[in-house]
């Protein structure tokens, strides 16, 4: 039976039989890039977002204030440029630009990881800034009032709460990255979308290949969104708490048993 004689389901089965290996490899590549780059992007985003929220202290001199201002300005440019241009063009720009301008061959993988992380970082920076600003200022005052330093207050009190605030957005970015890694096919990264194009190109079965590939994308994103929900609920801790009753004084009445023969009130 040739492809033309098959019906829709038979063609899907045919694709799955012949290409399940490459599809799985493509999906794994997509997931690996998405997870790694979201993680790196979060690190970049937290670093940049944190710097953006630093207020100059009163005792800081003019030099320190100036340096802070310059750094903030540069970071602002980074955020605006990477948020404001398509990632597909950024990929081409960095990958081809590195080789033609500086004669550096980044390699497809390095280029792919840099582009997606840096792009995610630009979005995360604004998210983290918002996450930090949305933590009640009283939390910082409480931390400072018991003698924690500026950085201790940040690390122990503010950032954990900011992280919780931005968790939904991290999940959002992971899902966006799973889908958007498809633009990396422009520099030849063999991920899920690239696999789809190879299959449809080889067999001319666009509809069937697209259906299968879409289903795989959906399974990946849906699984991630559920897992992240679960992580969020873990971060919130249980809605109930145990009263601490290890105090022996609290056990005195409950530990003795009623003895029928002896009688008594207890």
């Amino acid at each position: 039976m040739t492809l033309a004689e098959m019906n829709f389901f038979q063609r899907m089965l045919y694709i799955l039989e012949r290409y399940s290996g490459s599809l799985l490899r493509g999906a794994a590549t997509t997931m690996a890039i998405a997870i790694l780059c979201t993680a790196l992007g979060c690190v970049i985003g937290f670093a940049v977002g944190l710097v953006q929220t630093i207020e100059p202290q009163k005792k800081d001199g003019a030099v320190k204030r100036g340096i802070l201002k310059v750094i903030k300005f540069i970071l602002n440019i980074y955020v605006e440029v990477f948020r404001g241009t398509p990632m597909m063009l950024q990929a081409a720009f960095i990958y081809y630009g590195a080789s033609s301008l500086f004669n550096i061959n980044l390699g497809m993988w390095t280029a792919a990881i840099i582009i997606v992380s840096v792009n995610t970082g630009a979005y995360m920076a604004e998210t983290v800034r918002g996450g930090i600003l949305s933590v009640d200022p009283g939390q910082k005052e409480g931390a400072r009032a018991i003698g924690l330093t500026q950085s201790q207050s940040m690390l122990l009190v503010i950032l954990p709460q900011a992280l919780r605030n931005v968790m939904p957005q991290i999940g959002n970015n992971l899902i966006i990255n799973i889908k958007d890694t498809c633009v990396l096919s422009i520099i030849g990264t063999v991920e899920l979308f690239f696999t789809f194009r190879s299959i449809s190109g080889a067999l001319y079965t666009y509809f069937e290949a697209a259906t299968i590939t879409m289903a795989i994308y959906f399974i990946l994103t849906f699984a991630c969104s559920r897992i992240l929900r679960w992580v969020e609920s873990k971060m919130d801790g249980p809605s109930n708490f145990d009263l601490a009753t290890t105090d022996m004084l609290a056990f005195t009445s409950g530990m003795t048993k009623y003895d029928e023969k002896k009688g008594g009130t207890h």
Partner: protein
Amino acid sequence: MEEILKIEHLVKDFGTNKVLKDIDFSVYKGDVISIIGSSGSGKSTLLRCINMLEDATDGSILYHGKDILKGGVNEDAYRTRVGMVFQSFNLFNNYTVLENCIIGQRYALKRSKEEAREKAMMYLKRVGMDQYINAKPRQLSGGQKQRVAIARALAMDPEVLLFDEPTSALDPEMVGEVLDVMSDLAKTGMTMLVVTHEMAFARDVSSRVIFMSDGKIEEEGSPDEIFQNPKSERTKEFLSRFTNG
């Protein structure tokens, strides 16, 4: 009596708005000072200046003779000695009750885990919150939160505790439990500086009362002097609103 804090000619401006105008007073060991006065008279700002949460515009705050405003004292070390209890509790939402009381001891005072835990339990027991050590702040009532906040401040073994309207954000039925804890604390000889609207507390518990009006100390004296024999017209007017109303 040992003088812990001496405030001299303290001035605080917010832009053109003068909130504190030339404040002078001293805090001695064992003092329980209530600061009363109408809203906007600068009471909370005064307390926040003493804790360095606000930068004073002018004047000096001497801690054992060293001016904290001129960098004579390490800011963070100073704050471990002069604790603060806030109107809005400011418990760390990401930690349990016990962790709230431990974290400052561990990181600011570098105490061992065991010592910090023991201290925290001791003070949580004193405020009657030792059963709730595993709870998160959001699971507690306002009064319970404030008691934990007091235990958190006490666990640092401060020399002075500042209370910024500790009962103003509470439901009326919870005010009592917090005031009880504070009265007990006063009896143990803790040095306290309390901004409050609870006139009964100011009259019955404190050793000295400061009445503030319009950014200045209008009158200062023993509770009897202020409540029985107020000299200033403004004090009389302020107090009459509480006794008649």
